[in-house]
């Protein structure tokens, strides 16, 4: 190997990579060394979150028949708004990916901030459409206390929305940190973890739109 080896990414046997996902690589050594455990710990947290969502999915399926004579899936859900929400979340996953690349390759800080702001706006747009959905459902008598089916719906889907809300707040906090402290290693590791959360929320949403909305409407 020639001297160019030093520029290779970290996962080529130089330093062991302890967490999957986007690793920043050797040019960010100071953040890489100290905080890899934090990112790995976040993966463990994410996995336990996946269990919670998985069991709420199972609860939802079990309660599908429990409409108690109230409105069912085809009365309450709308394909169009589910589609809009799906598209918004998918695009936001892509824009967060672009932000991660801007972080990794240290392009202009402005580029990083722009991608993050676009992601934040998409996240807020998703929440807007989701809340509008819930409002419509309430209008049709789909309140959580109406039936076991609607209770199960409102423990599954809004929990995802709550996660998105948390992720948006976290993103706003990180943008504030960037404004005050610049892109230091705190910000870098926070962004790595937020990226994992954000992409995971999109994966959970795949389950929601497939099982709850498409499954319920077909």
């Amino acid at each position, binding site marked *: 190997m020639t001297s*160019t080896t030093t*520029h*290779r*990414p970290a*996962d080529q*046997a130089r330093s062991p*990579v*302890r*967490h*999957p*996902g*986007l690793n920043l690589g050797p*040019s960010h050594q100071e953040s890489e060394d100290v905080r890899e455990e934090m990112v*790995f710990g976040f*993966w*463990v947290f994410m*996995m336990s979150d*996946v*269990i919670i969502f*998985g*069991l709420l999915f*199972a*609860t939802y*399926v*079990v309660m599908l*028949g*429990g409409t108690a004579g109230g409105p069912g899936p085809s009365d309450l859900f709308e*394909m169009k708004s589910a*589609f809009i929400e*799906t*598209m918004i979340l*998918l*695009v936001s*996953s*892509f824009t967060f*990916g*672009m932000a991660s*690349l801007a972080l*990794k*390759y*240290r*392009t*202009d*800080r402005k580029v*990083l901030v722009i991608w993050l702001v676009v992601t934040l706006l998409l996240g807020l747009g998703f929440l807007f459409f989701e809340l509008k959905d819930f409002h419509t459902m309430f209008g049709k008598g789909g309140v959580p206390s109406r039936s076991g089916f609607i209770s199960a719906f409102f423990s599954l889907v809004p929990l995802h929305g709550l996660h998105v809300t948390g992720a948006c707040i976290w993103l706003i906090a990180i943008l504030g940190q960037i404004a005050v402290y*610049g*892109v230091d290693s705190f910000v870098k590791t926070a962004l790595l973890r937020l990226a*994992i959360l954000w*992409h995971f929320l*999109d*994966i959970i949403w*795949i*389950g929601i*739109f*497939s*099982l709850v909305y*498409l*499954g319920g*409407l*077909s």
Partner: protein
Amino acid sequence: MSQRELSQEEAKEFVSERRSYAWGYLLSLLLTLVPFGFAAFGDLSRMALWLTIAGCALVQIVVHLRFFLHITWSGNKREDLQLILFTVLILLIMGGGTLWILFSLYYRMMPGMMP
């Protein structure tokens, strides 16, 4: 952020990683549009539609893990792949067990709860 020139390799890597995100996005878009399209305009039987939706969802989850979360089969990330696979195993046991037990119960005692 200290801005600096990218070396040639890094520039190449940057382009290839960006392309990987774009591929992930395009594949996910396709795997979203297909089930929505069939559900909205398609003329499939209920079973075929459900299988299409489930199949697209599973493939899309793998696409997200591969292109957005960078989970691969490559050597030193194995441990974390094992973490994910173990979680999936736990989920299958607990989720599958829930469905099995409760639907068996519905079948025997509460046929009205079968969806």
